């Protein structure tokens, strides 16, 4: 008998494999993960791009908007983690998993890990589209590694939040509602239009919500701009979300599986 942690890692790998395989078989999933990022990028650069000025930053719009689009591309798919978890929890699958000799937590964890793999790949597709459309970053290898870490951290935090939501609701339809939050959050940030153009209340929200520091940090890294305190604030938000969501998800999972 191998050690419990090696066994759990193997179980997690099998469940991640299941999730990725499922994803390739659902047309919506494929579209969300491949076509959607490209379409969002095209829309912002060509449809809105001509009409939006980037204010005092003086950047080309494509350079301005790429960080937000990378997050949108990964975030939408991450939000759908709530749906896949709710489907497992409300159908018979969870009974099957629970009568197998595995730790229950690997079931939601498998969905979260698969979501990170899938959605970081979606962000990469969006980035490739941006480069084709004329995005010219000025970043060192270290900068790229940090950008990857930020995108991964964002997708992980969103997937973990989605997992909490998916364990909280009692149907996969209700679980789908979480996508709206993730879809609209970037609009009220400094990522798509400069927040300084927004009316007072929205501007305050935009400056103080987590996406603005994440986007500003990514911009600094990608374009070689000076970085203020945004990196520290971004890291705090992401780490905080993961540190809060993981134990909450664990408690919810235990409650859900104990009371039925």
């Amino acid at each position, binding site marked *: 008998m191998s050690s419990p942690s090696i*066994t759990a890692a*193997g*179980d997690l790998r*099998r*469940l991640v*494999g*299941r999730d990725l*395989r*499922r994803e390739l*078989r*659902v047309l919506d999933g494929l579209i969300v993960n491949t076509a959607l990022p490209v379409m969002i990028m095209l829309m912002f650069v060509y449809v809105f791009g001509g009409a939006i000025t980037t204010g005092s930053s003086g950047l080309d719009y494509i350079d301005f908007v790429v960080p937000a689009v990378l997050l949108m591309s990964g975030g939408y798919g991450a939000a759908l983690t709530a749906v896949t978890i709710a489907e497992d929890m409300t*159908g*018979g*699958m969870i*009974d*099957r*998993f*629970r*009568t*197998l*000799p*595995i730790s229950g937590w690997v079931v939601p964890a498998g969905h979260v890990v698969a979501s990170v793999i899938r959605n970081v790949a979606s962000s990469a597709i969006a980035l490739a589209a941006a480069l084709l459309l004329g995005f010219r970053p000025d970043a060192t290898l270290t900068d790229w590694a940090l950008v990857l870490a930020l995108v991964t951290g964002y997708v992980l935090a969103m997937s973990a939040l989605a997992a909490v939501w998916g364990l909280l609701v009692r149907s996969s339809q209700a679980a789908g509602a979480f996508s709206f939050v993730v879809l609209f959050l970037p609009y009220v940030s400094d990522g798509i239009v400069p927040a300084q153009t927004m009316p007072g209340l929205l501007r305050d929200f935009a400056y103080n919500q987590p996406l603005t520091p994440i986007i500003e940090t990514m911009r600094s890294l990608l374009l070689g701009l000076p970085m203020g305190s945004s990196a520290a604030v971004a890291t705090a938000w992401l780490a905080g979300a993961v540190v809060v969501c993981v134990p909450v998800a664990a408690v919810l999972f235990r409650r859900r*599986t*104990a009371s*039925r």
Partner: protein
Amino acid sequence: MNVIHSTPFTDAILARGLTKSFGGTRVLSGIDLTVPTGSLLALLGPNGSGKTTTVRILTTLLPPDGGTATVAGHDVTRAGPQVRRAIGLTSQQATVDPLLTGRENLELFAGLCHLGRRQARRRAAELLERFGLDGAADRRAGTYSGGMRRRLDLAASMVSAPRILFLDEPTTGLDPRSRAGLWSVIRELLASGTTILLTTQYLEEADHLADRVVVIDGGRVVADDSPAALKRQVGSERLALRPANPADLPRAGATLPAAHLDPGSGELTLALQGPDHLRHTLDLLHGAGIPIERVELRTPTMDDVFFELTTVAA
């Protein structure tokens, strides 16, 4: 191994006084069950009688409020992991992934039972053949018919080669042919030494498969007997009689004290013990001067079973 099982258990499943309430509603009020190793026990009851709750407690999915249960010699509340290693469960809902093929489902579950990759592949192929699914092995489970999906569910429960199998209404909603197919699979599993507890709403199913039948109603055991003894009580067939004049119904009831009167349909029904009993019954009614408009033979329904069992107990 022999240290752990120094006292070999002869009962694979043993439950005493199981109780469970949900939000103040009592679902189980003291269920006792004994399933000897290698036998099949049918838990027979209508919807809402507590069958599924009992199965969920015995498979460690739900803690009981009171009472004790051991499965494969392990206490279900204190030794969940050991119990889970010994059992397989096919619950009423689909417990396979509809987006994966039959083969992929079985290989996934085999992997999660910690079989090696090659071993898992072999086990999946073996089960697909055994359950007659080799032709559909590489189709997505979501495209399977009801009968095929149940067989895949059953195969998934057998991946770990459990000694004890729980089947929660395995044939509900299946057409007669799929049901017969599933019955023969269940009989084979029993013949190969698996202990089985199955729940059903069908008396016929319990009669076909079970060594022993426990009838539950309202969270209580109302009968615990062999199928033969139960059938003797209920009658393998029900005789339904309708007096030509509905006003004769009470008088007919007085003539046949074992009959159940249904003023709604204007009928009285009783367990039929054979051809002589039929003639005798008609003779009695004729002697009492009650003309009969219609005579019908029926297979007993769950209602008939409960009528017989509750009146016998009363």
